[in-house]
């Protein structure tokens, strides 16, 4: 089993290392990731929003709907954990069950 795992993983590692040689340099302005959408986001931030932090502009404005969903995820997760933790509490204790 271990031999099989190694036989599968080693070629994969070799492939990934081989491919990584073709990746663009870090911070390369001509990299594909920097050519498609980034210039537009920088431009929109400077022109329409006028705040220095482009990350915040993208997070809260350009992708505001996404961030609304993230906040809802945090809220829902909190509610779910609260429901699980309060499962044993008697109904009249709920909300003040921290008293002994």
């Amino acid at each position, binding site marked *: 089993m271990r031999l099989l795992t190694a036989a599968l993983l080693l070629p994969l590692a070799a492939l990934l290392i081989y491919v990584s040689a073709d990746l663009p340099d870090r911070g390369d302005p001509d990299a594909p990731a920097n050519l498609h959408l980034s210039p537009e986001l920088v431009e929109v931030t400077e022109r*329409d*929003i*006028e*705040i*220095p*932090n482009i*990350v*915040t*502009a993208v*997070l*809260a*404005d350009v992708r*505001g*709907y996404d*961030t*609304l969903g*993230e*906040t*809802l995820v*945090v*809220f829902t*997760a*909190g509610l779910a*954990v*609260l429901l699980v*933790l*309060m499962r*044993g509490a008697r109904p009249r204790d709920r*909300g*003040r*069950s*921290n*008293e*002994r």
Partner: protein
Amino acid sequence: MTEQHDSIILNFIVRVLLVPFIFVFGIYVLVHGEASPGGGFQAGAIVAAGLVLARLTVGSEHGERRISTRVLLWLASAGIGIYVLAGIVPLLAGANYLDYAALPVEWFNAVAGHERTNRAMGIFIVEVGIFIGVFSVLVILYDHLTERFTDD
């Protein structure tokens, strides 16, 4: 359940030096989210960490239940509500959902004496909503995770 520690050194360092600093730093991270790294999520986590530190030190009897779970749940919902409202109000003005440019906040420029775009102020409004929501959820989690250990 956490108990109160009698060490005056611990009490002084945490309650006089650390906790106020953490609160102020959290608010700083929130307010400067537009200019530097930070924002609602980070600020909520920092301020909640400060509150948890205070509760760990002064003990549950003094530190906890200053804000009840009921109030915290309302706060968390209000945080989400601020965000959703910032989305719905532009709809009433005929713009898209979450289009902060249509928020009626131009008057604030005159009050505060600065020149910020509506979208920048919309970002700040939703960051405050995120901050309130994340802070409340984290404090709720801490309260109920520590309380279980007394019952068992």
